[in-house]
């Protein structure tokens, strides 16, 4: 019964046409697959990995490399590990030799989970033609159930005024640098602009910030800020890069306590706002 149930499940999830349901389903299936894999023999895991075109081999025992079961091509490794957040998954913290990353069986199963998740998400990209009303009713009931359990996504409201004291350290530094008319790298400017646009600063005020720069050109700056805000060009509103990316490019000046608990500058801002609110509930204007 297991096998035919999978295409039916896929069809039903596709019919919900809800990206959050799709993601949740893909993740759940991937987690289940990974748990099952952990109980499998190494040969079976190899077969499955090779099915996904991974270059996975049994680790040859070497004096400096004990306790590893597999050696995986580093390209296959980063494709799947780059989005796992814990620092032990960063390539730089792995044992690497001649393009191969050394891994335990449990670690390979965790990486396969990412591959499976992407595989299912991709399967969910298709569109279904209309299904019978009977089936659609069932799907809608399931959808309802999902919303009741998970609630609708709601970002905590970001207040319309800009609260400078809630800026993360990186934005604080970028803001200070630019206010004093100093040069900012391209990625620095992009980070600052996307951040300010996303916390509700007006285009006008963002443009003004850049005014003190030596190479300021009003028309150019306005165009770029409006582009980033999604008012021009591709109409996509850009968001700032993740903390991890800012670290790579030297924009992160070092973490404070809140930084350690978030992965994105905007998440810092939201969290800090909550803290400010609880610490000073009777702030003027509140």
């Amino acid at each position: 019964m297991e096998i035919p149930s999978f295409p039916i499940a896929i069809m039903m999830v596709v019919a919900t046409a809800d990206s959050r349901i799709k993601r949740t389903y893909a993740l759940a299936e991937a987690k289940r697959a990974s748990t099952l894999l952990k109980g499998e023999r190494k040969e079976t895991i190899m077969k499955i990995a090779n099915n996904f075109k991974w270059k996975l081999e049994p680790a040859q025992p070497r004096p400096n490399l004990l306790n590893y079961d597999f050696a995986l091509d580093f390209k296959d490794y980063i494709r799947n590990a780059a989005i796992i957040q814990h620092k032990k998954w960063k390539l730089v913290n792995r044992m690497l030799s001649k393009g191969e990353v050394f891994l335990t069986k449990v670690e390979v199963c965790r990486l396969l989970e990412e591959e499976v998740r992407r595989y299912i998400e991709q399967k969910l990209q298709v569109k279904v033609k209309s299904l019978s009303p009977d089936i659609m009713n069932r799907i809608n009931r399931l959808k309802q159930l999902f919303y009741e359990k998970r609630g609708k996504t709601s970002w905590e409201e970001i207040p319309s005024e800009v609260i400078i004291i809630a800026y993360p350290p990186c934005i604080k530094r970028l803001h200070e640098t630019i206010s004093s008319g100093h040069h900012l790298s391209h990625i620095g400017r992009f980070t600052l602009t996307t951040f300010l646009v996303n916390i509700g600063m007006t285009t006008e005020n963002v443009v003004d910030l850049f005014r003190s720069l030596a190479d300021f050109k009003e028309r150019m700056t306005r165009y770029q800020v409006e582009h980033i805000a999604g008012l021009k060009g591709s109409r996509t509103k850009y968001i700032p890069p993740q903390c991890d990316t800012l670290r790579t490019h030297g924009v992160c000046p070092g973490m404070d306590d809140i930084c350690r608990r978030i992965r994105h500058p905007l998440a810092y801002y939201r969290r800090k706002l909550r803290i400010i609110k609880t610490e000073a509930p009777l702030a003027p204007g509140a």
Partner: protein
Amino acid sequence: MIKIDTKAFIQAKFSEYYEKNSLNIHPPSSMEKREFGFLLLKERIMLRHKAFKTAQEFRDSFKTLIPSHVYFSSAYYERPEEEMEEKGWLGADLVFDIDADHISAPCSKTHDTWSCPHCKTTGRGTPPKKCPKCNKQKFEEKTWPCEICLESAKEETIKLIDILTNDLGFSTNEMSLSFSGHRGYHLHVESKDILTLNSTSRKEIVDYIVGIGLDPQLHGLSKIGGPNLDDFGWRGRIARGTYEYLLSATPEQLEKIGLPRGVIQSLGKHKERILESWKYKGPWTMIKGVSFESWSKIAEQALKNQAAKIDTVVTTDVHRLIRLADTLHGKTGLKKTETSIATIEEFDPLKSAVAFPHGTASVDVSEAPKFRVGSEFHGPYRNEKVELPMAAALFLLCKGSARITEVGSSVR
């Protein structure tokens, strides 16, 4: 004497170079899928989204456009001549840029200059926050390629090649290495396995090379031991870095990284024992009074010298334009020059990149530090008229440090 315009002269020389050498400029692989960009010498505008179908068309473009800089995309596109969103990205090579600007060699104070366009104040090294005379914050900077800068860029390149081959397993056949024609090196990896890596995956490669997010504890540093010199990957690098660091660090430097006095004394007292210990399991647990925390600080510092200082933005950008080999660098008149990885140690960039080996020219130099182009040293100069070999003269003209006054006899 006929008065010659400097800009027109540079343009004539660039044109002459492309007339003579266009056959030696090779199109990159899969040329028809790449985007090309030209900065035009005369009009000073960037011509982007160019694409070529044939090598002939490609070579003719240099002669007609006379560019001061020529670039090609590390990316492959379905329609390279379209606007960015319409191009249809197919993949990109893995590229690395090592530039003296990112290394801050100690010599920059002796040859780099800044000037305030407002009040004409000038100074050496990196510009101050504000002009000491008029308080303005805009400066024109002039950086120079010098032996020391280029030597440190070369050292970083050698570290990069070591990581790419020994750790990441690339073969030197997949790499091409060039002197950029100004202050650094470009390393280009062409391999079908890396083509479709996205920016996030490339960032992991960058973090690996630069050592960002590296935790020595995940490389075996613990209260009961640490990495060995002959370990693989970063593990071995931490050990070798620690070995080198402890050999060279002064007590003041050790204090600066936050080691307590007692620890510094112990390290000094047991220098011989530490050296000896590397033959076995390293010094990690055997020096009394040096705690795990202290070893962590030392390792943290030691790994900085083992990382290769690449430009992080270039490698993570999957749409990057890269200078094309054997074309001229508009800031120097030198050409981007390929060199073999096997002979990088002996490679002399300032000699190999000379694009104008014949003739002389007289120039009026406003200011120039001592510099080398080809095998000869020239300068320093200040407000003087000198006759120089063509490559050296053109170098100063492109740098904006001199005006042309007369062209030597061997040049038509």
